């Protein structure tokens, strides 16, 4: 799919997005709320047949951000869905693993490190922290006391 066609098709999900940012020719950000992230992901993966690369979780003070990176391998364009989770007390987002099995482990890792609950994830067990790591302590949150002094802001 060429760049022009991709941009035209992205407008089909425009009502689910807060905004579209094009930082460079080959980098597109789709900003959306957490509730709509599942539908936008499904559109990119199933309708546009883009390749899922990886997801990223970020603690950005007022909200959590989950970034789903997709690649259009024909042009090398990377499309990133930036989903904002506003609820800091009980952060949760719909899992994309049911239709995209490749996301299973990265969602488990984000669940481990940031404490984000992925709803309808088939297997949300601990992945990379130690077996005796205390429950409810999420090391990549900015307020986490276990974070070393050197990495704090």
């Amino acid at each position, binding site marked *: 799919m060429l760049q022009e066609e991709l941009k035209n098709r992205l407008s089909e999900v425009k009502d689910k997005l807060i905004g579209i940012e094009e930082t460079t020719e080959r980098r597109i950000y789709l900003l959306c709320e957490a509730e709509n992230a599942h539908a936008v992901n499904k559109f990119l993966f199933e309708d546009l047949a883009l390749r899922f690369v990886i997801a990223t979780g970020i603690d950005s003070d007022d909200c959590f951000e989950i970034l789903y990176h997709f690649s259009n391998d024909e042009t090398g364009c990377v499309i990133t869905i930036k989903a904002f989770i506003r609820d800091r007390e009980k952060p949760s987002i719909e899992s994309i693993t049911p239709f995209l099995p490749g996301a299973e482990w990265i969602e488990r890792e984000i669940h481990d490190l940031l404490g984000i609950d992925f709803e309808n994830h088939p297997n949300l067990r601990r992945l990379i*922290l*130690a*077996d*005796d*790591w205390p429950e409810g302590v999420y*090391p990549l949150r900015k307020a*986490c006391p*276990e*974070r*070393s*002094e*050197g*990495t704090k802001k």
Partner: protein
Amino acid sequence: MSLKMWSLKKSVWVFHVNVGACNNCDIEVVNMLTPKYDVERFGIKLVGSPRHADALLVTGVGTHQAVIRLREVYRQTAKPCVVFLIGACACGTGIFKGGYHVAGPVDEIIREVDPDAIIAYVPGCPPKPEAMISGVVKVLSAL
């Protein structure tokens, strides 16, 4: 020299333990065994069980999950044994010092199990195979 020490130095069999390394040191350890350096001609070879080993090659910072296994592996190694700490992480946790998942330094963890352990440090990120061979030679001539 006791019989045990003599047999330890005769041909050192090593067991490789990764306790949270980035795999870079591990690649250099494997490189040391390839034909270019070929330490097997000195009788140094990797074995599949700590019970067969004379030395432990430890790489990595020592994560919370891995140090439990490291203590157990050290207990199971036939004594006397030498512990080689390979790389900056194993020698003193390196750039991961103070990280949330770091339980190391590795030498302190081994000293908890055995205060008289023979520990050799090979720093570097990663250390060259020459440095590891030099470390082995120095330890064996010091024993």
